[in-house]
């Protein structure tokens, strides 16, 4: 593994992409997220770290309203995407999810061909007018997913037949095919081996050029390697949020320090 190269990570832009204000999440009686305020910038990789059960995945799933699919989940507060409240009644969560793409913990390619996996989103949203355009979108997405060279000769092969790392990059390609503005990644490397992890991490860094990326990770090294901003969650609270270098070298909160030095978690 590389050494932490924190100091190289610089913050390029300061455009706020997503702003969360006083967000609370309840699962039934459980108060999972408590008064979280966070501002996620464009063209930046933001990492959410924290011990298991601290609410980082829950908060991530609030950002594209995936929690709506869980009946008992209730979200209060405001989450603004480009200044618009995504929990407003006028917002269609289905459309929102096309704009805020998501990559999951376990690679989950559909039991279809590689081509159909990537073409799934564009077809649903009618992004291509004809076959040629669709081909173009698929190729572009697979190139962005850094997997084009490996699969270009077997686009008709089933996506489930790829290796774990390839599957995850296919899922990333599938997510970028709908032209999202934000990419949410929920522990995208936790089911991958170190080599596949390195490939995906490299890809995440490249994706920063076009998207705002939010990644939940258990690996502090990974957060340090890929992110420019880091948020530390603990027991449903956002304890500390700041530039990655600062969080890892000079944390303000004693809990953050305890976590990154391995004393809690």
């Amino acid at each position, binding site marked *: 593994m590389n050494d932490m190269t924190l100091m190289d990570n610089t913050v390029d832009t300061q455009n706020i992409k997503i702003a969360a204000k006083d967000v609370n999440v309840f699962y039934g009686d459980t108060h999972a997220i408590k008064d979280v305020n966070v501002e996620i910038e464009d063209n930046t990789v933001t990492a959410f770290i924290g011990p298991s059960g601290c609410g980082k995945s829950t908060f991530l799933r609030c950002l*594209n309203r*995936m929690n709506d*699919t869980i*009946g008992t989940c209730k979200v209060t507060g405001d989450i603004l995407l480009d200044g618009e409240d995504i929990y407003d009644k006028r917002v269609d969560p*289905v*459309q*929102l*999810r*096309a*704009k805020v*793409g*998501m990559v*999951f913990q*376990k690679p*989950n*390619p*559909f*039991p*279809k061909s590689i081509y159909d996996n990537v073409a*799934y*989103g564009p077809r*649903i*949203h009618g992004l291509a007018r004809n076959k040629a355009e669709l081909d173009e979108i698929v190729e572009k997405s697979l190139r962005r997913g850094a997997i084009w060279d490996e699969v270009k000769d077997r686009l008709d092969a089933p996506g*489930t037949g790829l290796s774990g790392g390839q599957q995850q990059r296919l*899922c990333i390609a*599938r*997510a970028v095919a*709908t032209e999202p503005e934000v990419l949410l990644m929920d522990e995208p490397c936790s089911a991958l081996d170190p080599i596949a992890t390195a490939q995906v991490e490299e890809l995440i860094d490249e994706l920063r050029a076009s998207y705002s990326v939010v990644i939940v990770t258990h690996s502090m090294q990974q957060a340090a390697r890929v992110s420019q901003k880091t948020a530390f969650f603990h027991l449903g609270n956002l304890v500390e949020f700041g530039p990655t270098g600062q969080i890892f070298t000079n944390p303000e909160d004693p809990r953050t320090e305890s976590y990154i030095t391995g004393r809690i978690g």
Partner: protein
Amino acid sequence: MPTFWLVVLLLALSAAGFYLGRSRALRTAGGDARDLHSLPSYYGYHVALAAFVPAIAVLAVWLLAQPLIIENRVSNLIPAEAVPENTTIGLVMSDVRRVAEGLDLAVEQGLLTRREARDAAGGQDLRALMGEVGVALGSDVRPEVLSAAQSYRNLSHTGKTAMTVVVALLALGGFVWAYGRTHKDFRARNVVERGVLALLILAASLAALTTVGIVLSMLFETKNFFGLHSWTDFFFGSTWAPNFRGGSDLSILPLLWGTLYISFIALLVAVPVGLFAAIYLSEYASGTVRSFAKPLLEILAGIPTIVYGLFALLTVGPALANLFAKGGLLGVEWMAGATSVLTAGLVMGVMLIPFVSSLSDDIINAVPQALRDGSLGLGATKSETVRQVVMPAALPGIVGAVLLAASRAIGETMIVVMGAGAIAKFSANPLESMTTITTRIVSQLTGDTDFASPETLVAFALGLTLFVLTLGLNVLALYIVRKYREQYE
């Protein structure tokens, strides 16, 4: 000694063995159960099993084998001329058995002494005596029958005594042997474990052997049938016209057509409704709805098919007749009576709905949530997700479910007996009466029929064909379902 008391004795002996074995084991350990290899009760079970199992096994085999052997030996005693014309040795033997039984009863009730029974002569008074003890005979007892009955009695008596002795000795021997082996280092627990294994294997092989037995019996009768009737007519003929005076046309094809047509209509009803119900229940319904709707659907599966048959006969049939028959609401005359392919098919479809829905529900639930999340996360709606991701992933399993439902439909009897009619013919009109293989089996075998005629034996050929058909469907369905299971493990 009657068998009942023998079994009671065995049980008592093994119960005693349990307590004795346990206490002996404890004694060898000096009263401290911790020094024993196994828990004390295992030593008890060991002795009880050793006393009971071999003895009861021999008893069971003996009870099955003795009548066969005696029957064989006694029937050799009956001279060929003693068998009257147009009867068989079997009928004479049943007379022999009844006379023997009557003599036993007479002795039991004190009407005859043992000696009198042994020396009894045939004639009028014996028949009257038999009548008195409740054994009705068709004619006076002929001397050959009487002597055969006497030797039958003797043989059974000897056999029974021998059986009692052998079983009792075996039980005692097992008891003593196991009791002698009981010692604190003896691994009674492992022995009991093997006993449990043997019991489980026995249960499993009984089920498998029954299947084999059923198939074999059908095979033999089918062979008899094909000895009396040409197989080309059966498989390739075009008419079904059984005639108990002989010279029938017995072709399976019209029946097969009716069976498949009715099953097809049933699946046409059951598959869409059942599948959509399953999709609703597994993908859309809230927990509360699900907890009400699922048991309701399962109640539908618990309704006896005869009740569905009544429903077909009394409700659906007349309702269809109201629409399509002469003087009906539509003013057409397409239907002659209440029974029709459509009546039976619709009702059978309703019967199959819970079958399809509960199987499909399981299969849809087995599709990993990650796939749904992936699709929803790309901005697909629920129905798009179901249509494009969940269904393709679940399809092999659903095909399997449909095939299983089809094999039930093909084998279903009561609904078609009551709803489909009895006319065997080829017709594409679903409003006509037709008949199925199962219905014909029922009608060929019920009633007063000669068991050696092709008209009766055809039932076995029909049954075997049906069995092969449904077996094939089941195997195919299981193969598909299993192949699908492998995908997600």
